[in-house]
């Protein structure tokens, strides 16, 4: 059964209090342990500086120890730096609050609403369903004429004409012009993909906008002609 609004408000208040308490506790722990950690690091650094020449001469030899003496400070600094884990790239996205991977997939500064976990689909991945297109239905919206192609004929047209056009395309911007043709492709899982062609060279693939150039437009015209020709 669904909870009432009052119950939900109470839950939000409870989780809010838990969150605040957790932040307070983290701050308290940090304030207590930070001086101890700093002191330990300084002492370890000092001890290492004193003991290292002896240790190295035991294991490596005098010449290395002599070289080490002159560069002790730099070596120590480098070691400290290398001990600090590299920032973000290989780590899970953090929510910036409790140091744990975010349940919501992380919220970046550039996107205050939070992102979706994982990567955006690449254009090539988007095209993958086209591999098994079994049917294409093209409608010329200016004349109302439409044609349907099936099987290998439609595969060949896609591979030779439309596919290169889409690969060359890039994201387009908003500019309202009329759509002059629409291509509906039937894919193996029974679903369909719609490609809409616009007069300014933009085309949309299932709602995503791509921009093509004059050569691409010529290819699209060639495609529409070829579909109607083969259909006739």
């Amino acid at each position: 059964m669904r909870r009432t609004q009052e119950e939900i408000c109470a839950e939000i208040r409870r989780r809010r209090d838990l969150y605040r308490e957790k932040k307070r506790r983290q701050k308290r722990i940090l304030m207590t342990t930070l001086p101890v950690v700093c002191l330990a690091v300084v002492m370890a650094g000092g001890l290492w500086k004193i003991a290292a020449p002896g240790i190295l001469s035991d294991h490596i030899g005098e010449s290395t120890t002599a070289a080490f003496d002159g560069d002790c400070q730099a070596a120590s600094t480098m070691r400290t730096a290398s001990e600090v884990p590299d920032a973000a790239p290989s780590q899970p996205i953090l929510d910036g609050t409790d140091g744990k991977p975010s349940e919501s997939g992380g919220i970046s500064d550039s996107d205050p609403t939070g992102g979706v976990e994982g990567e955006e689909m690449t254009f090539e991945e988007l095209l993958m369903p086209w591999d098994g297109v079994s049917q294409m239905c093209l409608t010329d919206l200016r004349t109302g004429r439409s044609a349907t192609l099936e099987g290998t004929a439609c595969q060949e047209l896609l591979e030779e004409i439309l596919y290169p056009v889409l690969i060359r395309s890039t994201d387009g911007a908003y500019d309202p012009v009329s759509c002059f043709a629409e291509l509906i492709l039937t894919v193996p899982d029974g679903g369909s993909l719609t490609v809409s062609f616009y007069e300014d060279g933009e085309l949309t693939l299932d709602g995503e906008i791509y921009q093509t150039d004059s050569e691409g437009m010529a290819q699209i015209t060639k495609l529409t002609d070829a579909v109607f020709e083969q259909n006739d």
Partner: protein
Amino acid sequence: MENGESSYRRFLNGDETAFDEVVKLYLDSLIFFINRYVGDVMAAEDLAVDTLLELVIHPHRYDFKRSLKTYLFAIGKNKAFNYLKRHRRVEYTEKSDDFADLASLEDSVLANERSRELSHALDKLPDDMRICLHLIYFEELSYKDAAVVMKKSVKQIDNLLYRAKNQLRQMLPGDDFRA
């Protein structure tokens, strides 16, 4: 009741009770919206709570430049996507409780039988079209706000709506769907 932005501003200024107003204002519509993605009212309710909690946990991320509703729906959409990456969309075939929950949610969100009919028809549309129509018709967001929530351009929203309305006309003959 004041609008969501001013209630939230009062909450940020220390009025703890103002947050309840934000919850009451947006909770049901958020659950209804997230349910369009996840198809499970209980999960949608949990995700809506998580979404509202973002306002508490990250209070300064909202900049008051756009509507709080758009901001919340954008977070809700992301939460729903993340949920779907871990779970499959649930169809309403299992428990009678689910139907009862959905019915009570519809009662609180949808004004009349006509809206309910339209809402059920939306379930048969592809995801993007369903969400787009939901935001424009049920939440009455502008094309621009719907584009923000769906992370699409206004032109894509326009295009999606056009195609969605065409499909709806076939499903519900005799109806007129105007933007």
